[in-house]
């Protein structure tokens, strides 16, 4: 278990700045997930932690020791790659024991440790196979086994589940999480999948364009997004965002002329974006703000139904449990839970306190 400190780190590729100035503290044994869209710099940051990319400016310290100039092997980290990067010419046992072999451990010791880890990951019957003879999920487990064998102080995961099918991904998500509970090793995990981030992380770091948008526990980020980007990025279906202005009476007037009793303390005339998650809009009277809309899309998912309704010119997504009797084209009333409405400054995207 180790701490990681990223202090004012900058990464430049020639004239292009991938990461302008980033600081982050990871505590001992924490499972931290870096999440963001493609090209947001999350993998670059992970590769800088691993020592696979140089750091242009700033410092990275593991357990208080600055590792900027250390080779990857000196950092006592292990990494699971998106492509798994298994050595195709070695058996599963060879792959898993490779780092120990390089460390000069004797054969019996390597075999013992490999067997031990293979048991944890249910790989013991596959030890003599080559990676080409394994399924995607098995390869994924070998890649994890290879990193566990070394007993590193930090695990780095670079989108490890993105090459797996949806079902296997759910299963591996649970396996990785239980592995973390069992080993307690610090994990930095990169993904673009917000569900992975929400389900696995102790803390989520939402990144965008090389900067951190918000850091916090998954549900804190979900319930209190610091800005429009985080609000939109986390959650599926994503949060409804509707532009409007604050009226003289302190209500929010949406583009369609609809007036909602929100934002009383804000300056009149301010341009705001109203945000509400699909699950906080109800089709029955739950005491929220009532609005009349027309149903334009109905998507039953089984346990829930997703509706897209037209509210003036705006399209709003609603998620309700169970099934609905409505049809496309029906006019219905919806109720928006006031306490779950968020207001963001339209131009800066920053969250506004009402």
């Amino acid at each position, binding site marked *: 278990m180790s701490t990681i400190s990223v202090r004012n780190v900058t990464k430049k590729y020639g004239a292009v700045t991938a990461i302008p100035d980033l600081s982050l503290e990871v505590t001992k044994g924490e499972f931290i997930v870096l999440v963001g869209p493609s090209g947001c710099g999350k993998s670059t940051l992970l590769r800088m932690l*691993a*020592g*696979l990319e140089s750091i242009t400016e700033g410092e990275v310290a593991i357990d208080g020791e600055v590792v900027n100039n250390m*080779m*990857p*092997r000196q950092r006592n*980290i*292990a*990494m699971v*790659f998106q*492509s798994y*990067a*298994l*050595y*195709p*010419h070695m058996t599963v046992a060879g792959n898993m024991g*490779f*780092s120990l072999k*390089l*460390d000069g451990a004797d054969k019996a010791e390597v075999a013992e440790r490999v067997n031990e880890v293979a048991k944890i990951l249910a790989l013991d019957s596959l030890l003599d196979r080559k990676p080409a003879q394994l399924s995607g999920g098995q390869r994924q487990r070998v890649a994890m086994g*290879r990193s566990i064998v*070394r007993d590193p102080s930090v695990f780095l995961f670079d989108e490890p589940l993105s090459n797996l099918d949806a079902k296997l991904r759910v299963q591996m998500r649970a396996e990785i999480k239980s592995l973390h509970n069992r080993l307690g090793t610090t994990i930095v995990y990169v993904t673009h999948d917000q569900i992975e981030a929400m389900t696995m992380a102790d803390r989520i770091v939402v990144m965008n364009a090389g900067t951190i948008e918000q850091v916090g526990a998954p549900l804190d980020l979900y319930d209190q997004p610091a800005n429009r980007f985080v609000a939109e990025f986390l959650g599926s279906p994503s949060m409804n965002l509707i532009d409007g202005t604050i009226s003289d009476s302190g209500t929010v007037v949406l583009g369609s002329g609809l007036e909602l009793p929100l934002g009383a303390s804000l300056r009149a005339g301010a341009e705001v974006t109203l945000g509400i998650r699909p699950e906080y809009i109800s089709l029955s009277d739950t005491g929220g703000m009532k609005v009349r809309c027309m149903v334009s899309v109905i998507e039953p998912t089984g346990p829930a139904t997703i509706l897209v309704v037209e509210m003036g010119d705006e399209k709003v997504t609603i998620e309700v449990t169970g099934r609905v009797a409505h049809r496309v084209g029906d006019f219905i009333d919806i109720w928006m839970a006031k306490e779950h409405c968020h207001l963001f400054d339209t131009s800066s995207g920053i969250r506004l306190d009402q």
Partner: protein
Amino acid sequence: MELRKNLFCYLMVAPALLITLALGIVPMVTSLWWSFLDYDLIQAETAGETFVGWRNYQVVLSDQRFVTSLVNTVVMTVMVMALVVALGLLLAHVMNAKYRGRAIVRTLICAPWFVPPVVAAAIWVWMLDTDRSPINALLMDWGLIDGNLRFLTDTTDAGPLSLPLASVVAVRVWNGLPFVVIFLLAGMQSISRSLYEAASIDGASLIGRFRYITLPLLKPVLGVIVMLLLITGFGHFEINFIMTGGGPQDMTNVAAVYAYQQAFNFFRFDYASAASGVVFLMTSVICIFYIRAQIRKDK
């Protein structure tokens, strides 16, 4: 439909097959046939060509000059193969690395490829001329030698090894290197970068990464290269012939040059064919291994 598709495929390969048949198979079979005849060009008009069985083989194999040329063939081929592979691996790394001026280095490494072996041999004969060699001048300037080295004419030997043999080997390496470098470079570029990254995280040093990743993953390519070098090396003719004509004192004589001499200096087409037959046998053994490896790979 299937038949038409197959017909089209055969039509496409037919020209290549015909050319191979006319320029490769027919001369080869003819030569093999001649190796069993009494075929002295000077007496062929009057005495004709009679079948003599293995006699020509017995004659050439008991000729000390042929045995020497066979030893030289093997020694030179193995030396060229070992040096080309070792230098090829090194230069392929140099070509693969990223640095300023890489394009120039790549062009320089490939340059010998643009020179046909015959021209290369002629240039190097001049470069290695005892009195005019710029290499001698350079070594002299640096004070490494007192007198001119006789690169192609020194008759001092150590077993089958000698300075002329080394000189011819060097030129054959120089000329054959680019092909091997390109081959290896292609092989190296097909190795995923993430494997090297995984290996560095696993604790492999630069040499460790070469030993445990590059080398094993290049093994199939290296196998093909080694076999191709052996096959072409056993039958090699032009550089040896032009640079030294097999001399001095047969020190650089190889089987192909011996066969040429028998045929065109002494007009003994039968002995020449028998000598070629021996080379054919040697390359066939390698070919069998090569084809077997290919079949195994396809499976």
